[in-house]
């Protein structure tokens, strides 16, 4: 048995599965760093997966291999728009952010399947897309034994995800926008007294959040599944929230946590190679990411590093 190859495959698959989680948890990071709880990541991912698939379907005959890019960008825009009600409810109307998020999750699940049925003549899922993203091999580097396959043969969306981690870090920790974003999430009144528009910051953050989460959703339908159905996202938005918290609201931390949960998903192919499935039902293997999420949340993370004003609506005139 070639252990190098097995490891190489594991890393390769981990990156595939982590990509969506990285997008979504970065999305969550913007919202939560601004003080708005975003449990609607799941719904935003669903909308992204749906929009990405439908728009790619619409353009795949005319644009060919460009169609997934159109779908991908459309997903981001759709996600930002879909996030707007969450911002309106939790920032302007000071509603409970968890309730608002849960409502969006239900809305996304219902709306996407309903629209799918209308567009695809009553079918519960889109037809399989003829054009999706294909993996890019980085010239030169992908020839490196083992390492090349592991890291340098990946979907373009994976590369974008890793670049976004860096960009987010830069934006959040190095620029005035980031300083203000974090100030609004830690102590909105302090931000207000130095002239920062708390509402505007939070609206912006929630919409960025929707866009990124939707991009994450689109990476699933435009790479691994090649279609959209009701279970395309299947809880990955919640895992992304867990990754965000596990990563202590830091882009690199969230990426690390997303990779960790990615391993849990990738490992099921390993299990099949070893023939373990004859001893352990596959259902248990598929449960792994979710079980790990619970264990991680229960065991390793305190609330100490959460933004101080997370979940608290900001009331300007309160005495």
């Amino acid at each position, binding site marked *: 048995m070639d252990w190098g190859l097995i490891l190489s495959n594991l890393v390769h698959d981990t990156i595939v599965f982590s990509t969506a989680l990285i997008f979504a948890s970065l999305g969550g990071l913007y919202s939560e760093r601004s003080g708005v709880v975003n449990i609607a990541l799941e719904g935003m991912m669903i909308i992204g997966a749906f929009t990405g698939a439908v728009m790619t379907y619409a353009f795949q005959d005319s644009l060919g291999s460009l169609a997934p890019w159109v779908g991908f960008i459309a997903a981001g825009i759709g996600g930002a728009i879909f996030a707007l009600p969450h911002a309106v409810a939790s920032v302007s109307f000071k509603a409970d952010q968890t309730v608002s998020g849960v409502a969006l999750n239900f809305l996304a699940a219902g709306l996407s399947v309903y629209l799918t049925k209308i567009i695809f003549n009553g079918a519960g899922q889109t037809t399989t897309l003829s054009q999706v993203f294909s993996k890019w091999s980085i010239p030169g580097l992908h020839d490196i034994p083992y390492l090349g396959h592991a890291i340098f043969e990946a979907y373009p969306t994976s590369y974008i995800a890793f670049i976004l981690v860096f960009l987010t870090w*830069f934006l959040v920790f*190095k*620029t*005035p926008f980031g*300083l*203000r974003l*974090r*100030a609004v999430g*830690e*102590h909105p*009144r*302090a*931000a*207000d*007294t*130095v*002239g*920062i528009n708390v509402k505007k910051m939070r609206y912006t953050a929630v919409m960025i959040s929707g866009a990124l989460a939707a991009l994450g959703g689109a990476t699933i339908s435009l790479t691994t599944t090649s279609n959209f159905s009701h279970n395309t996202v299947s809880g990955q938005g919640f895992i992304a929230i867990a990754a965000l918290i596990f990563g202590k609201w830091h882009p690199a931390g969230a990426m690390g946590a997303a990779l960790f949960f990615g391993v849990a998903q990738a490992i099921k192919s390993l299990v099949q190679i070893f023939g373990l499935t004859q001893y352990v039902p596959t259902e248990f293997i598929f449960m792994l990411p979710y079980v790990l999420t619970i264990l991680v949340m229960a065991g390793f993370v305190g609330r100490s590093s959460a933004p*101080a004003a997370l979940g608290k609506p900001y009331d*300007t*005139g309160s*005495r």
Partner: protein
Amino acid sequence: MNPVKNVVEMRGITKRFPGIIANDNITLSVKHGEIHALLGENGAGKSTLMNVLFGLYQPEEGEILINEKSVKITSPNVANELGIGMVHQHFMLVETFTVTENIVLGNEPKNGLQIDIRHAEKEVEKLSDRYGLKVDPRAKIQDISVGMQQRVEILKTLYRGADILIFDEPTAVLTPQEIHELIEIMHNLVKEGKTIILITHKLKEIMAVCDAVTIIRRGRVIDSVLIKDTNPDDLAAKMVGREVNFRVDKIEASPKQTILAVENVTAMGNRGVNALNNLSLEVRAGEILGIAGVDGNGQSELIEVLTGLRKATSGRVLLNGKEITNQPPRNISESGLSHIPEDRHKRGLILDFTMSENMVLETYFHPTFNKNGFLDYGAIDKHAAKLIEEFDVRTPSIYTPARALSGGNQQKAIIAREVDNNPDILIAAQPTRGLDVGAIEFIHRRLIEQRDNGKAVLLLSLELDEVINVSDRIAVIYEGQIVGIVDAKSTTEQELGLMMSGGKGLDGGEKR
């Protein structure tokens, strides 16, 4: 034109909140280069007025002139542009940010896309040196002292080019040493051409630093005078609306039987070492026993043991001869012990409950308020209305959340509730912390009234003046032990100070 012009003029400012007029036709003029005090009791409307000036609140009526030009201050941004800066009572600082990040927030110097943090740190250092503030620009807010945090607030306003600085109760959170330094800083600021408005209810400070004072009571301006034309008694009377007695008048105590006996109690502190070491004391009916000591010598732990909030590892506590050691708090309170807690926000009130609900926190299960497992809100509200009237708690209504009340009124409400339980012993921990003279006088009177009604009172305070003036006997606590008990009438601050720092009393204290 006058050589000294008015930099701030507020004319006929009226600001209403639901159920309350916080500012009623207020007029205020502040001259360039002066330190102008805004004096008033808690809840008189000082902070509201300043929030109007700073653009956080919009007044319903009135006009504001800055440098003799009429302006509309619609947001803190506008205030900043007009050169108005505010040092808030509750600091507007992000705990996880550095000093520099907090100062530049909203006005960040840039280098390309990035914040030019190096440049910002240098700027902060320069400003800090110029005004003698000694602030480390790279330190995180959560790691620096409260006094230092306040200087960061001052730097924030200076960095924005403020010429008019509003200080909102700046000394409430400071140690005496820090207050001294702050006064120096304020003098430096005025020397550099700034104008200062100081919100306070502390007469001592006003007399020490201010040039002029405007007195506000219940949302109205009572008077505006120069410091050289006034004195503390006059100011206190104007602030409270009647003569204030700084001395505590009381008749001779006539102690009777022992109500509370603490026998050799030992208890662990939060750091895992003994905070109380074999501590013993007695409080008798008809007397006030004061406990003097430097903060952190076991005072808080003693109160927690007495009220059932902390376990004693050995020893006994007897109330009316009945053992209450390590009983649940409810049993202890039902046995006749009431408690005015040190931290009124944490242990005294549930801030988001209404005043009405807060008044029955310890008694809601009594048949009076509880019919077959349902709360009788009719009875609860009537009870609250009675107490609020009797103890002069100023609240818009009994349905107002406790959070919305001023500190003094919150404390009055707690005292109303505790005294109404008709306890055999009342434990008052720092009952006047952060309150103004009117409220302090009120609370002292209530404690003495308890005593005169033949009840026992245990008073714990970090203010030596208070312990000496209110108590009949004073027990000094040091490292978890009572190191001496003295008669309040014959002792001196020097004697107590010596015992508090671990030296024995002059003649070993008068052991009783």
